[in-house]
């Protein structure tokens, strides 16, 4: 064959095939390899009411497929955060002045208002890289790296997982781990636990950077129940150790009878806090356990996705999360998906509203509302459609609300009636585009 002119075999073969079959198809062959790259992109706006946190986030997740079911995943997220966040201090009937975390200036909160730190501005970039491949016929493994950088925080992580199929691939058992080393390099330094907030320019209450290490382990079982139903059950263990305190959060030091924050006078000629504030202090170790169950159920074109999570940790926080989604097709190319989520948590054992002047300091204390007792609800709707070129788009809009309660016996004197849990209302708007190349 080597001596034959190019394509001569094809031509002679076509002629021979034509006489064998008696006819040839009208349409010539059109076959292409499927795209190797899969892109998921999303633009997200998250906004809280009352000028609190606003986040604009761009997300790209690219996946490259190789032969033998191997794939490479590359993820990039860029977040731009602005807005104010509660600093942990309580309301007062007089204006309150705080030294900014940088220690270079101060801000004042009007009388009767919840103290918010408005210096919250950050840009965060996060990347992740993952590799997934089968090991033999029934095993699958993945390894990954994650890293992120923001002005005052660096995260480095590694993860891996192993899964095996059983029972005609109806059962999959998987185990995964993730380790992370995170570095806090707070603006102006990390405060010494329980150190008082000092005048502008005085940094003797701050040290340098701090670190924390996190280990996560997840063990899961996925089971095909029937042609229409699939369930997953996961147990997760997570341990964090190191600096788990929020370097920007503080507590008000109050009078044991009136509940009012102790006034403070700045040094002559200096600008400084108007009241006594103490930086918070959390335990250096936290172990969480969670159980997560998810079911997907198909009913005549509609798909119900229901999940429940129970979490408990040694900070004495217990939480329950229920998440429900119903994907409802509208014709062949689009769908709507209502989403409802309910979350409730109990408070950490060191969560408190304020510190009492003169009383013995507790070992740990934080007035961070996220460690308090609250319920949260998410309600949203997503609309997705397929474009003519086969790409997928979707928009979703959701509202997220937090409603907390402070038990009456935790409030002292004037705090009663004045101090309330800082409820939160936020909106989530997201546009997603999925395409292949």
């Amino acid at each position, binding site marked *: *064959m*080597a001596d034959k002119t*190019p*394509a001569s*075999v*094809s031509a*002679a*073969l*076509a*002629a*021979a*095939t034509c*006489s*064998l*079959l008696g*006819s*040839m*198809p009208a*349409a*010539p*062959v*059109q*076959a*292409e*390899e*499927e795209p190797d790259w899969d892109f998921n992109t999303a633009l997200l706006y998250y906004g809280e009411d009352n000028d609190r946190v606003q986040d604009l986030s761009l997300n790209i997740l690219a996946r490259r497929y190789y*032969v*033998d*079911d191997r794939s490479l995943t590359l993820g990039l997220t860029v977040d731009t955060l602005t807005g104010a966040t509660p600093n942990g201090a309580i309301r007062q009937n007089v204006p309150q002045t705080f030294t900014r975390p940088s220690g270079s200036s101060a801000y004042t909160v009007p009388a009767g208002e919840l103290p918010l730190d408005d210096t919250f501005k950050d840009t965060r970039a996060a990347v992740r890289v993952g590799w997934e491949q*089968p*090991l*033999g*016929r029934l095993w699958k493994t993945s390894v990954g790296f994650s890293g992120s950088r923001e002005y005052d925080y660096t995260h480095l992580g590694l993860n891996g997982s192993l899964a095996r199929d059983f029972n005609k691939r109806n059962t999959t058992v998987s185990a995964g781990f993730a380790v992370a080393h995170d570095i806090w390099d707070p603006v102006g330094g990390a405060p010494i636990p329980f150190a008082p907030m000092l005048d502008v320019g005085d940094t003797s209450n701050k040290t340098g950077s701090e670190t924390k290490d996190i280990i996560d382990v997840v063990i899961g079982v996925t089971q095909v129940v029937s042609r229409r139903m699939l369930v997953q059950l996961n147990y997760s263990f997570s341990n964090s150790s190191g600096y788990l305190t929020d370097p920007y959060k503080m507590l008000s030091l109050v009078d044991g009878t009136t509940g009012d924050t102790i006034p403070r006078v700045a040094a002559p000629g200096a600008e400084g806090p108007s009241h006594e504030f103490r930086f918070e202090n959390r335990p250096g170790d936290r172990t969480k356990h969670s159980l997560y169950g998810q079911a997907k159920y198909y009913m005549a074109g509609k798909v119900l996705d229901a999940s429940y999570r129970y979490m408990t940790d040694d900070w004495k926080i217990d939480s329950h999360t229920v998440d429900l989604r119903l994907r409802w097709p509208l014709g*062949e190319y689009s769908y709507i998906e209502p989403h409802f989520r309910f979350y409730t948590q109990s408070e950490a054992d060191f969560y408190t509203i304020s510190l009492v002047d003169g009383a013995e300091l507790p070992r740990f204390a934080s007035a961070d509302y996220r460690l308090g007792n609250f319920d949260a609800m998410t309600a949203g709707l997503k609309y997705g459609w397929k474009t003519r070129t*086969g790409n997928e788009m979707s928009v979703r809009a959701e509202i997220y609300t937090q409603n907390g309660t402070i038990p009456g016996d935790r409030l002292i004197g004037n705090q009663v009636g004045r101090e309330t849990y800082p409820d939160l209302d936020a909106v989530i708007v997201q546009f997603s585009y999925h395409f292949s190349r």
Partner: protein
Amino acid sequence: MAARESARAISIEAEQGCLVGRFDAMASPCEILMESGDREQAAYLTRIAADEAWRIEDKFSRYIPGNVVGRINTSNGSTIEVDDETASLLDFAASLYKLSDGRFDITSGVLREVWRFDGGNRIPTQRAVSEILQRVGWSRVAWERPLLALETGMEIDLGGIGKEYAVDRVTGMLCAAAECSAVINFGGDLAVTRPPRQRESWRAGIESLSPTGGSSETVLAIRSGALATSGDSRRFLLNDGVRYSHILDPTSGWPVEGAPRSVTVAADTCTQAGMLSTLSMLQGYNAEAFLDGEGVRYWCRR
């Protein structure tokens, strides 16, 4: 025979907005994927396809005694008159023999008496190979349509053409029988009757098993035409660390050196695709160079 008859059943199922008809023929799982929601039509079309596949299997399989191939292989040197369809297949085989300089040869099946590709390590002696080569060679066959005379001890095997031929026959029949687009997939060799309407293209996975047991899949999008794959990575011989592929070169009686694990070719018909992939395997190390020279689309796995 009873077991064979009971295995001859078809099933129809709905999958992803299509109907799929399934049956077994020619030692392969066969699928007819139809862009249709009409179960009655799907059953009708699948029945046409299955009947044709089973007819071709019964007529040309060398494992079924008494059919035309059986009669030829037990003719003991006497001249046999064959029907039109068999004659067309023999003409086609004769063309392929010429085109491939003797490498594609329907009389080469007897080589398997000495070469057993079961993953073992038994290599025949050159003497045994030379002896068996006396019974191989289309050039020794007296073929004058419709008369065929085979020397005693020689055999023909149409297994290298049969499945692709069946796919093309069924494709032609279903194209005439229905307006809807359908994919005829006989164990990975497939053809499309006409471009689909509700989707851009059909998706076809070309899968092969690697020696380590891992499965590999490349997904192809096909609108029209056919795909055929040659090669089976589980069939090989290992001797002194040398891996002998199951592709035998009838001109030497030995396995082709450097044949790819599998080659998938896209062509207008399944027969062309199948022959091009087989011919490229026979080229061994030059498989890709051959396919490049022919200007066809192919996916080669080494």
